[in-house]
């Protein structure tokens, strides 16, 4: 382990040195950075144009909004799932998390963009009075016809606010460091954001408690949001689709795609952000193992659903399988299967692939592309069958043809993904992308010691 920066264990040995070094890296940016912002800004504007074109079609026909819904859920999965990568290892007190947590938490800012993207879907989703199945016992419990829209909006707002709160709370010590190292209006802004942080024992105790509570709430809210979206905005639209596992598979996808997003972000920060001394093979190795385990789980969840439908062979379930898996969208499903499961499994099982920077990064790209196609495979066909007369059974012969994306869909996709990158980059200029205080804390727990004839890195672990 004692290889210095190659493993991401920076050779700077004092807390003051680490703080100074990381603040310096945070402030450095050149012309490439500005050009990146310009390009992303232009693409984002293109997305707005695409959105305006899409709005010309109105919101009464859900089938034209399938790709838009898939985009919204993909961002919810890949970007808003990323903070989970900070929460879980922090609870487990894993040291490898230290340069990863902030980079993951910064994705919480994307929640604001996604909340805006969600607004049209509130009108696209039909009311419960159209006769489909629902969780809400419409007609028996006196539930309003647009109850799912209301509850999901509330859940999404909660998720976004919790994500931002987590980011802010975990950044307090770093905001104080920025306050103390800047002047003028920047200092005043950082002073406001740092809320009088001076690093007293009481403040640190409170900090750990707040992060723990906010992390737990974010995780629970994430599960709830996926539950709501996957049932009311997906399953309920397909007649005969009853899959109790779906909310869990969707939450699992968020964890898998979240890890993939963070791996790619770490790669970019290491290569272009100047953090190569802090982000090393150790961190890619740890996240690679996580991605490998989550990819195996993907197969298990998928197979658990598939075998019950396939073996049960009820007419309605055959229709659902035809629509989502083995029918017109079979090529998309096969691509998902290869990208999300086969490629990660047959590459990440080899230690040399996991213990590299490039290996987990390339696999993460594969997983993200697969996750994107997976959302298309679910949402586009589901939004194309909303006008079926029988709201409780979909037969094999009733499955419609593939819905192809239009130019407006491409523009929205490109623009929204550029918007995600743009908002992340801008946020990383406000708050350091690598947590300064967690890096300095690591110095306290890290000792190099001699064991027989070899020298080892010893890491202490808090109770």
């Amino acid at each position, binding site marked *: *382990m004692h290889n210095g920066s190659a493993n991401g264990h920076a050779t700077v040995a004092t807390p003051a040195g680490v703080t100074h070094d990381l603040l310096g890296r945070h402030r450095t940016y050149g012309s490439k950075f500005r050009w990146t912002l310009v390009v992303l800004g232009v693409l984002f504007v293109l997305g707005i144009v695409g959105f305006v074109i899409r709005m010309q079609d109105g919101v009464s026909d859900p089938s034209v909004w399938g790709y838009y819904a898939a985009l919204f859920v993909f961002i919810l999965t890949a970007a808003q799932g990323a903070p989970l990568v900070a929460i879980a290892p922090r609870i487990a007190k894993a040291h490898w998390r230290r340069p990863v947590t902030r980079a993951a938490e910064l994705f919480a800012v994307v929640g604001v963009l996604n909340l805006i993207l969600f607004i049209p879907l509130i009108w696209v989703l039909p009311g419960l009075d159209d006769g489909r*199945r*629902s*969780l809400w016992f419409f007609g028996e419990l006196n539930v309003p016809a647009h109850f799912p829209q209301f509850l999901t909006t509330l859940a999404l707002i909660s998720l976004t606010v919790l994500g931002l709160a987590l980011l802010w709370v975990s950044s307090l010590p770093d905001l104080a460091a920025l306050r103390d190292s800047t002047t003028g209006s920047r200092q005043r802004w950082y002073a406001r954001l740092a809320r009088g942080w001076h690093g007293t024992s009481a403040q640190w105790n409170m900090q750990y408690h707040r992060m723990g509570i906010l992390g737990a709430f974010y995780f629970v809210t994430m*599960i709830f949001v996926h539950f709501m979206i996957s*049932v009311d905005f997906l399953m309920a639209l397909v007649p005969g689709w*009853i*899959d*109790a*596992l*779906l*909310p*869990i598979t969707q939450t699992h996808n968020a964890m898998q795609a979240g890890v993939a997003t963070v791996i790619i972000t770490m790669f970019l920060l290491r290569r272009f952000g100047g953090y190569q001394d802090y982000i090393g093979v150790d961190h890619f190795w740890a996240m690679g193992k996580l991605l490998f385990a989550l990819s*195996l789980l993907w197969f*298990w*969840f998928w197979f*658990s*659903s598939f*075998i*019950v*439908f396939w*073996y*049960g*062979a*009820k007419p309605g379930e055959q229709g659902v399988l035809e629509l989502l898996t083995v029918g017109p969208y079979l090529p998309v499903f096969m691509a998902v299967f290869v990208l999300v499961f086969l490629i990660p499994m047959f590459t990440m099982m080899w230690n040399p692939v996991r213990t590299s920077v490039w290996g987990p990064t390339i696999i993460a790209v594969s997983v993200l592309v697969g996750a994107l196609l997976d959302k298309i495979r679910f949402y586009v066909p589901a939004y194309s069958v909303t006008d079926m007369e029988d709201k409780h059974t979909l037969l094999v012969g009733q499955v419609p043809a593939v819905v192809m994306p239009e130019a407006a869909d491409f523009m929205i996709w490109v623009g929204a993904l550029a918007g995600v990158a743009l908002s992340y980059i801008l946020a990383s200029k406000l708050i350091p992308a690598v947590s300064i205080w967690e890096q300095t804390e690591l110095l*306290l*727990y890290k*000792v190099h*010691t001699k*064991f027989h004839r070899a020298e*080892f890195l*010893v*890491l*202490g*672990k*808090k*109770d």
Partner: protein
Amino acid sequence: MQEHYILTEKEINDDLLRGIFYTPKWWPPAVIVLTIIFLIGIGAFGYMLNKGVGVTGLNRPVFWGFYMVNFVFWIGISHAGIMISAILRLTQAEWRRPITRAAEVLTVFSLIAALMAAPLVHVGRPWRADLWVFPYDFARGVWINIRSPFVWDPSAVMTYLTASTLFVMVALLPDLAIIRDRSTGIRKTIYGFMCLGWRGTPRQWKLQAVAGILLSALVLPVFVSVHSIVSWDFAAQIGPESWHSTIFAPYFIIGAIHSGVSAVATVMVVMVWLWGWDKYLTPDHLDSIGRLLIVVASAWFFFFFLEWVFALYTLEGPELAMRDLQVFQWPWSGLFIVFLLTAFFIPVPLWMFKKVRRSLKWMFITTILVNIGMWLERFLIIIPGLMRRGHMIFDWGSYRPSIIEILMVMMTFAWVLLGMIIFSKIFPLIPLFDIKEGMIGRTMIKIGRRMVPASIRE
């Protein structure tokens, strides 16, 4: 882990091998009582073979009774060993060291109990077991039906049993060599044979470590597949209401982990009470497994919740009627309340308190409660699911277990306990080499004014 005992190798050998070289007072009566219960169960089994399955409470349409409940229960318990051992080993969790062996052994004996509980028993003609797998006259084109649970289940369980036994044996080798070196006569010869010439050379240690890691990684998919396959025995059917659900495989697995990890915690407490190993199994270990149990139990409850929500979501009359039977009709309603209280609502709030997690007595009580609840859970899935009146069923009734079934359920419990305590007389229940390795890698580092325990890792 804040409670560190520094023990010498001699102290470890003396403590952990005492049960093998000297017989504790409680051991002979415990073996006798358990053997009697076991033999009574065998007698009941023999009686059933002689008279036929008509002596059980199984009847139309409830063809799966206590035997199947017990089968699923023991398969569930068996999941703890591998989960605790393999996952904690792969993640290098320090607190695993004194627990792994007992957990692995619990897996082996509960798997055998599962095999005793159902496949060989409840079909009624166990002498035809070979025909399930190697049955047919291939020359006339009669082949095995690979879509039958008779092929799925034995294949999965036997693979798991083989892998788990290998897992135990590989980890036992260094400890067997220590017993060999401290024995004389025939005992030395037997242990010398069993330890396969272990001398503790660097090559042997390396191979043992590699085998341990490989088995850990390979046994995990097997562990997941076993209970998934058991769950598909139910979920693939469309007849009984409440069974045909996609969530069954993960729900069964998480339930198995819930009951299995609880069983391991029970075993840990019993090990401290019977052998006095409180320097090895400290309150810290109970605290760690208690925290794990909170996470596992909460996840299980979420799956349980989803299973119920989507049963109601179907809005299908038979499914809703079946849920009504489970929750509102006596005696199922009473059992349902007991199940929920014991599996979740009593233990989990108690585990939130650190004092409870660190208490032997409370951990024993709460983990036993969990397993009572989880046994009832399987009972409530199987029996009401089968007994509800459906189409094309013209002969229905309830289910009342016969004394034969009750005796055979007791037999499986006696078998597991008997197996564990006989194993503890022949092999060490806490791995000596793992404890010694933990002692070597243990150190303290100074952070500010405090000394914090730390572990040297590769």
